[in-house]
């Protein structure tokens, strides 16, 4: 590869691709071709740069200029202005709160508190080029390990680094490795868990897509430490690009002699293979994942025996998460002490978080453990979208719990989050503003878990369904006294009795919202009111007679013709027939229609009468 005047790095992570970055890349090729600039400018397709909300994004070196929300139409201008005349396009740069332009990527506030370890190369190198990985120090750690260290030394370094599993459990990585190292068997397996299914988490996808060789290097270091010669990367079928990139990386590593027989001239031989899922959240659970690789239904099995004793095809197996593996090469390059110097007493290093929901800078960030939620959400994440207030954050996906404003200053580490009723999980951070109804959110998470429960054990299969039905009743305005106690009782039972992590943690969203937003549940049950007017049966529309001009537009747009009136008498909604579609409110030219929290008194009276009639029939 010859040196060129300008390096144009285009983010081609799935987020930016979904926003059209591939078309922009093609357009750059086309324009540069036309202008005969291909020999001067290098176009590099990188993995995820992080700030998905600004996508499609790109960085232009040598200056490191950061452009956001680029469209195909902007390409000509970037080429003529920036590349030919040396005048970067100001309107595509980021503006801060004071409308000051921020030209360089390094000054973008989003990156300020981040320290990239696992994501070191993500968004910086071409993931399809082994040369670029090697140029950034890639495979150096593997070389050192294989040529100068004994397996137990490797495990010792991981122990000293304090690395814990990044997939959810937070189990110390070195203990898993040591167990398999000590096991006596003719074959041991190493599995990389890329079945990232937590709604709101996409760090594993970005790592696999953006820096695949790092994962392979991490795997081989681990495999050497425990004496495994075969590895599997289990990746969700929903991630076709990640599958393609990792397969390509395996082929490149083989070709270069970095995988296969006698790697780095040592006795160590290792081969890895990709396996895909087919759409089952539960397969992220390690025993379920192993069953899936074996070609079975992805049902979990009871532990013990742990996979470290009897895993894939009954052999000792370690299952490590993608992000965990992503940290390993850097730990060996920079030292265990360096890694352990970041974070808190029990949670070392950094953690990748996926910021989603009502937050300004959605995207992927890597921050030191122990950062406060406030820093994570407001400094890195840029705070809330619009002028809304922060209400709650769901940490750890459907297995996690929600935290509120009172927790904004707690440090983010495994223990503290657990103590407060949430969990690190895989690092999904779903931020919610004050417009959200927490009962509805809890119902939504429960719906997900009911769908994804594999059905093998009854507490999870039946218990979750019961929890969901109670929540559905409450949000439909049919909640009754005792429902809250029942939710807690059931939730705790499912938590204690379920077979695997899915069921054990699935009631968390309900239990944690009950813990912090009990008043909302009570208002739904007792007052039949959803304060944020999200649960349709618990709100109604009302026409203000004094504002209504009698134009009849609402009545004409009502799909169930439940609005009547005249120019003189103004218009009224017949509450019993209203389906709460909101059309009337949308079309009203004078904004005379309001959403009001609570079931309309007429509807309440009707429901009581209905109930009485039913009772007298009995």
């Amino acid at each position: 590869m010859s040196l060129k005047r300008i390096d144009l790095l285009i983010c081609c992570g799935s987020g930016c691709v979904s926003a059209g970055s591939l078309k922009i890349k093609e357009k750059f090729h086309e324009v540069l071709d036309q202008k005969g600039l291909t020999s001067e400018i290098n176009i590099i397709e990188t993995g995820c740069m992080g700030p998905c909300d600004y996508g499609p994004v790109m960085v232009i070196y040598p200056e490191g200029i950061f452009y956001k929300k680029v469209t195909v139409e902007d390409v000509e201008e970037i080429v003529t202005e920036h590349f030919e005349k040396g005048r970067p396009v100001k309107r595509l740069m980021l503006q801060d709160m004071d409308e000051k332009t921020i030209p360089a990527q390094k000054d973008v506030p989003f990156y300020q508190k981040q320290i990239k370890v696992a994501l070191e190369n993500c968004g910086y190198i071409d993931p399809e080029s082994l040369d670029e990985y090697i140029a950034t120090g890639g495979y150096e750690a593997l070389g050192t390990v294989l040529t100068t260290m004994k397996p137990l030394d490797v495990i010792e370094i991981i122990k000293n680094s304090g690395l814990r599993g990044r997939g959810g459990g937070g189990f110390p990585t070195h203990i898993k490795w040591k167990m398999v190292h000590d096991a006596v068997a003719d074959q041991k397996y190493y599995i990389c868990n890329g079945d990232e299914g937590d709604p709101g988490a996409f760090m594993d996808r970005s790592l696999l897509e953006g820096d695949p060789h790092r994962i392979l290097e991490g795997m081989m270091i681990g495999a050497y430490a425990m004496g495994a010669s075969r590895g599997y990367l289990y990746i969700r079928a929903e991630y076709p690009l990640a599958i393609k990139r990792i397969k390509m990386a395996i082929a490149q590593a083989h070709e270069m002699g970095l995988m296969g027989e006698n790697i780095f001239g040592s006795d160590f031989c290792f081969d890895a293979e990709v396996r895909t899922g087919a759409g089952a959240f539960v397969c992220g659970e390690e025993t379920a994942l192993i069953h899936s690789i074996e070609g079975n239904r992805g049902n979990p099995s009871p532990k013990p025996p742990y996979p470290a004793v009897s895993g894939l095809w009954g052999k000792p197996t370690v299952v490590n998460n993608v992000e965990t593996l992503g940290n390993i090469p850097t730990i060996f390059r920079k030292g265990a002490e360096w890694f352990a110097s970041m974070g808190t007493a029990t949670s070392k290093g950094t953690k990748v978080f996926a910021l989603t929901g009502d937050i300004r800078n959605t995207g992927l960030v890597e921050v030191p453990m122990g950062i406060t939620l406030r820093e994570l959400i407001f400094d890195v994440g840029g705070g809330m979208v619009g002028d809304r207030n922060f209400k709650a954050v769901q940490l750890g996906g459907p297995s996690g719990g929600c935290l509120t404003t009172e927790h904004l200053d707690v440090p983010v580490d495994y223990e503290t989050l657990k103590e407060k009723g949430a969990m690190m999980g895989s690092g999904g951070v779903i931020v919610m503003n004050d417009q959200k109804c927490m009962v509805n959110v809890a119902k939504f998470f429960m719906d997900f878990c009911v769908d994804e429960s594999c059905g093998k054990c009854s507490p999870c299969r039946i218990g979750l369904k019961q929890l969901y039905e109670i929540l559905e009743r409450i949000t439909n305005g049919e909640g009754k006294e005792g429902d809250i106690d029942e939710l807690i009782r059931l939730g705790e039972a499912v938590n204690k009795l379920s077979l695997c992590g899915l069921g054990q943690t699935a009631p968390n969203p309900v239990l944690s919202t009950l813990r912090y937003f009990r008043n909302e549940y009570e208002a739904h049950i007792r007052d039949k009111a959803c304060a944020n007017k999200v649960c349709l049966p618990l709100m109604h529309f009302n026409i203000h007679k004094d504002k209504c001009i009698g134009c009849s537009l609402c009545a004409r747009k009502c799909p169930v013709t439940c609005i009547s009136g005249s120019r003189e008498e103004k218009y009224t909604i017949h509450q019993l027939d209203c389906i709460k579609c909101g059309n009337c409110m949308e079309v009203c030219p004078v904004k005379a229609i309001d959403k009001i929290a609570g079931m309309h008194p007429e509807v309440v009276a009707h429901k009581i009468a209905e109930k009485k009639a039913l009772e007298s029939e009995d």
Partner: protein
Amino acid sequence: MYQEICSKYAPTKDNLIYILHEIQDTHPQHYISEEAVDYIAQYLNIHANHIYGVLTFYTMYSTKPRGKNIIRLCESPPCYIKGSENILRKLHILLGVETGETTKDGEFTLELCACLGVCGNAPVMMINDDVYGDLTEERVEEIITKIRGRK
């Protein structure tokens, strides 16, 4: 066709998921037929009921014929927070089918799915292998019209 696909994989049970994927992907109606199951059972020397067990466990497989293009709209919480319900309503109107159904012309099947891992650009849907993010009702219409035009 089945023979050609199966022979690419060693006849061991762990290849079942791969074989099912490939058979489904290459079938114009994106599903796995009874004949396919019978063939695989013979090839891998396993019972057809094991295959059905696997087939019905994973959400991506279908035992019923589907459309040429499979639309999978994410129904997970981050997309829900960003308004996936409106997108679903729009798709119902645009396609004239309910969730899980195929359009009369056999062009589209509309499905819901769990998180696609593009939550930074929610709401998101996948059509076949392509991901479409930052969806608005207008963008959905554009995308569907464009794919319809490709015929």
